[in-house]
Structure formats: C-alpha cells, structure tokens
C-alpha cells in the first residue's frame, strides 16, 4: 500500500467517523467537534488531490470560522432541554435497515460493473500555483455559476434576516 493510498483511507475514515459521531453523540458540543473532525478528513482528501488551496480554505473557513461560530451558538443556547429529549424516533430500526439496504444496493451495482471507474483521466499538469489555477477556472469557465452563487447567498441572507427579525406578537 503506497503512502497515498494509506492516507486516502485514513482521511476517508476520519470523515466518515466524524459524520457518524455528529449524528450519534448526545452532547451538542461533542457533536460539533465530531463535525470538525469530519471536515478535517475532507480537507485531508483535498490535500491528497493536490488541491492545496481548497485544503487551506476548508481549514480556515469551515473549521476556523464557521465551526467556531457554531460552538459559540451552542454554548449560548440552553441545551439542557435538548439533551433530555429522545434522540431517535422509533423508526430508527427501519431507517437503519433502509439505509443499509441503500448502501447494499450501491455496492451490488458497483460489483456488477466490470470496470469500476473509467481509466483514470490524466490530470493536466498545473502551470502556475494552485490558487492561480483555481482563480483562473473560477473566473473564466465558471464565471456565471460563481456570480449566481452570490444570488443564492443573498437570498439566504435575506431569509435569515427575516427569520431573526422582530416578532410582532
């Protein structure tokens, strides 16, 4: 097993376990930390792909910024109430079975394929730095989606402002 492969599985496991922890743990702070772990795993995968810029953004923005904000919110909100609630509905077994079945379905279909993935696409070697390449793609080929995402964010902002606005009651 080459180093790359080892790290791929390691980071993947980190991401998956973090995800599971987010769902399964009872304490909200623990959940947030588990989510961070998961995001970290994903960041590691970016790094393996040679996407240093994305790796940095993931760490700085998600883990550094957003998750810390999450933690603040969690600490400000009274969580005693939440921890007393039943964590899972009674449909958990069914959901579990269905989810496992879905996984099984995906795997069974995978196993039927002669080739798992098409022959690996040879990556064009990057000219210039990683950041520059990302920027180039983002502002030429994907300019339109990039701009449109700003509308998406605008809508989300309007929505959160409205939701947080003063109630008339």
């Amino acid at each position, binding site marked *: 097993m080459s180093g790359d492969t080892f790290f791929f599985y390691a980071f993947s496991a980190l991401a998956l376990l973090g995800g599971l922890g987010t769902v399964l743990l009872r304490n909200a702070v623990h959940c947030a930390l588990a989510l961070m772990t998961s995001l970290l795993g994903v960041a590691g995968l970016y790094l393996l792909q040679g996407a240093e810029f994305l790796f940095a953004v993931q760490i700085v923005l998600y883990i550094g910024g957003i998750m810390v904000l999450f933690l603040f919110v969690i600490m400000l909100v009274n969580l005693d109430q939440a921890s007393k*609630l039943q964590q*899972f*509905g*009674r*449909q958990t077994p*069914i*959901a579990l079975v*269905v*989810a496992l*079945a*879905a996984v099984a*379905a*995906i795997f*069974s*279909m995978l196993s*039927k394929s002669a080739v798992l993935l098409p022959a690996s696409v040879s990556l064009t070697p990057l000219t210039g730095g990683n950041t520059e390449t990302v920027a180039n793609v983002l502002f030429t080929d994907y300019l339109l989606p990039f701009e449109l995402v700003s509308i998406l964010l605008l809508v989300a902002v309007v929505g959160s402002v409205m939701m947080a606005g003063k109630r008339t009651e």
Partner: protein
Amino acid sequence: MHSLWLIPIFPLVGFLINGMLGRRFSKTVINTVAVGSVVLSFLWVLKALSALAPLNETYVEHYFTWISSGTLDIGFDFAIDRLTMVMLLVVTGIGSLIHVYATGYMAHEGGYYRFFAYLNLFMFFMLTLVLAANYVLLFVGWEGVGLCSYLLIGFYFLKKSASDAGKKAFIVNRIGDFGFSLAMFLIVISFGTLDFQKVFAKASTISPEVQYGSITTICLLLLVGAIGKSAQIPLYVWLPDAMEGPTPVSALIHAATMVTAGVYMIARSATLFERAPIAMDVVAYIGLATAVMAATIGLVQNDIKKVYAYSTVSQLGYMFLGCGVGAFSAGIWHVVTHAFFKALLFLGAGSVIHACAGEQDMQKMGGLMKKIPITFAVLFIAAMAIAGVPPLSGHYSKDAILMAAHARAPWMYWVGVVTAGMTAFYVFRSIFLTFFGEYRGKAHPHESPAVMWVPLAVLAVLSLIGGYAFNIPEFLSPVLPMHGGVHDESLATIATAAGLAGILLAAICYLFVPSIPGALASAFAPIYQTLYDKYYVDELYNVSIVKPIANGSREILWKGADVGVFDALVNGAGTTSMALGGLLRKMQSGNLRTYASWVLIGILLVMGGFAVYGGAK
C-alpha cells in the same frame, strides 16, 4: 357557407344573457330570451336545411384548425347529413316546445333565470354534439350535456336526494366517458384522424383481417361511452334517480334528447360497427337485456315519474337493439318517435303532478280524467303510441326494430314482443291509476295553463302521426342503408297483439278487478319485492364498488400514504390533525423523521428500479 355555427350559438347567447343578467330581469324578459333563442335556432335549422336540400352529400363547414399535433389535425368543423338533420329537427323542435312548456311549469319556482340559463346551455352543447364533424368535438358536446344534466338534476339543491342524484349521474357518466376517451385514442392510432368522414372512409377500405380486431375494440369502447350516456345495463342506475330534476328537464334531457346521444353516436359510427360483428352483438344483447329488465321494474313502481324513467331506459334498450341488429335507421326512427311520445308522457306527468300540487305517487291520484281532460287526452295518446297501437307513431318504429331483430335471430324478436306487452301494461297501469276510479289525494286538481297544454297538444299530434308521416329509414337510406327486416304482416300483427294484450291486462287488473294486483303481489312477494327494489342493483353497487373505494382510499391510501405506516408506529395512531395544540406534539413525534424515512425508502426503490432494469449489463 350556411353559417351552421349560428344554430348552437343562439342558445349560447341566451345562456350568457340569462346567466349573467337574468337575476335582474323580469320573467317575461327571461322567457323571451330563453324561448326565443331556441326557436331562433330551430328556424335557422329549417332555413339551413331548405337551402341544403336534398342533402344527399355530407355538407361540412370548417371554421378553424383546432388542434394540430404531429400528423393529427382536429378541426373545429360542423357537418350536416341526413342523420344530423333528423337529430337537429328533433332537438330544436322538441326543445322549443319544452322550453315553452317550462315557462308555465317553472313559473312559481325559485332560481327561474338559472333554470333557463342551464337549459339554454344544454341546448348549446346538445347541438354541438349533433353537428360535430369529428369525435373530439362530439366529445365536447357529450361532456357539456353531461354537465348541464348534472346541474339541472341537482336544481332543487335543497333536497339532498336531488344533489346526490346529480352527483351519481355525473360520476356514472365519467365511467362511460372513460371508455369513449379510450376509443378516441384507439381511433387515432388505427386511422390517424378523428374526422368522421376520414375515419369511415379508411375503415371501409381496410382489409378485414388486418384491422377488424382493433375496430372491434374501438366499437366496444364506444359502446361503453354510449352505455353510460344512454343508461344501459350496467350503467343505467343514474337515469331513474335523475328524475329528481324538474319535469321539463326529465322530458327534454332524460327522455327526448341527451340520453339518445348514445344511440346517435352508435348510428354515427355505423360504418365502424358494421365491421365489428361481435360489437354489434354486444350492442344487441345489452339493448335487449336492458329493455326487459327496465320493463319488469316499471311494472311495479308507484311514482309516476319513476315508471316513465324505467320506461325510458327500456325504450333506449329497444333503440340499442335496433342498432345492434344492423337496423341503425330503425333505431334512429325510434329515437324520433320516442322523443315525441316520451316527452309527451313526461310533460303530461308534469301536468298531472302540477295539478296534484306536487304529488308523484300514483296511489294518491285517480279519477283525474274529468278534472284535467286535456292532460288526460294527450297522455292517453302518448300511452297508445308507446304501446304500439297502430297507426300511432310508436307502432312503426317498434315494428321496424322487431322485424330487424327477427331477421337477426327470431328469439330476439320474441323477447322484444314480450317486452312490448309489458310496456303496454305498465304505461296503461299508470294511466288507469291516475285518471280512472276515485280521486285518492287531498289536493284540488286543476287544469294547467295554456302555455303548458299547447306544447302538449303539438306533441300529441306528432305522436299520433309521427310514425306514419316521417318514414325515417327511407329518408336515411343514403346514410344508413337498411338491412334485412323484410316487413312481415304476421309478425307485425303479433307484436301489435302483444301491445293490445298488455293494455287489456292492465284494464282487467286496475279497472275491472282491482283486487288482482294486490293478490299477485302477496302471492309472489319475493318477486314483487325484488322488482319493486329494482333488483337491488343500487345496493349491490354500493356494497361492491362505492364503499370499497371510499374505505380503501381513506384507510389505505390516505392514512397509509399520508399519515403513514411509520406514523402509526411512532404514535400508535394517525395524528394529522392540524389543530394548533397538536402542532408541537406532531413535530416532536418524529413526523419529519417519518417523512425522511419515506424519502429514504423511495430512494431505495428508485435505485432498485434502475438496478433491475439495467444493472445486469
């Protein structure tokens, strides 16, 4: 151009004027608009026909291309041939008379303008149905008359039975429409067009082996539509209930015109049916069975309108029989004569009911002959006509059908003859119960006003001479060639004798020895009760179809799909109550999780589907 479009447009304008402004109009204005518009279209029919005479060819007016999709072109076209002409005259002629009558009959009813607006709208759709040059346009009229029928049946909406009857009619008709729509689709597939002339032209050229299978299917599906509209077994159940509507409606829609649309449609599609012998047989069998069954029910009913309602079902069965044995023109002939005498019977019954202050039970009538002599006279003529007494109108058309039936299979003729006897019996039973003997009710019967009995008189004349004067089969021979059925004097005599025997029997039972009916009823109580309860068909439908659908949709699909199997697991019972109090509980009870589980299962199913249909590769 002869501006055929004006024919249906007049009543439409009448509908719009009365419907939108009628509330503010006086009755005189409403009458003028409603009756005037129908009379105008009657006059326009006459004008168009005189200009088009002798009408040996089909005359088509194309207005615009209605829908064009791929190779399929459907035009907004009207067409007139001799068949259409007969129907047009019946619809506008009888329609005018009934409109006049209704101004008298409805004079003291609420919702006066609404009634006439609906009635005019009905005329519009009925004329569209008759004039249509393709199946889609015919279907438009078909649905439209169904809608108006529904609105008019439920006219006395304060009576629950009336609005229920309206619903029943609409829903039962939807079953028929379903067959009709399928037939249209099959016609498109088989012939690539829905235009009458083109379809029939193609149908008459194709080779028998290739297409006869699909033509049979088409005809059977068309038949399903016709069964719904013309109240044949097994979809006849709505028509007797439809008598909840005002009497002019029963006369116009549920006796003279709309219910014969099914017969018209089959006659119109004669070219197709002639190439589908199996479908023809089915038409004949259904017609015969309906004729017998409805006649037996009619024998024992006490509500005067119910008797005539079952009589209508039975006579429609005759028309189907005529079409089914290949005598389409005889069927149409019976449509015409039936329109005369059955409209007369209903309007006369209306006049009787009017005179008895709304009473419909014949057991509370009697002895009305002297009190309402005109009504008695016209009803008597109508009864003679339907009983097939020569030389009244019913005699000719019924004979033509029975002759054709004999040519097809003698047993059909004999069943038809027996039914004719029963017909004569129950009609005269109603006459004797109503007009003879002593008056058994409490009201003070009085003769109807002239606006009511003048139309009756006109119809009476038509019932008298309508069969002799209008030889419809001969007139229709360019469109619908008459097959078989050579006139046989002895057979005709037997049929006439059966009618006379029925009258005689009725006279014995209800005039001379009034104890017989009661004795028979108690001697054969089970049979009597079964007939009186109409073979329990309504109850049967209720138990076998209506209830299961209602319960199934509530128990399985609503509660199942909506409240969910999972919800039940979570809460022990469904809680979709939107009461605010239940809201939090609902959200915490894991409803969302339930939904999410559903989505998850759905994903599994979808992926499974893809796997099954493609994963093997």
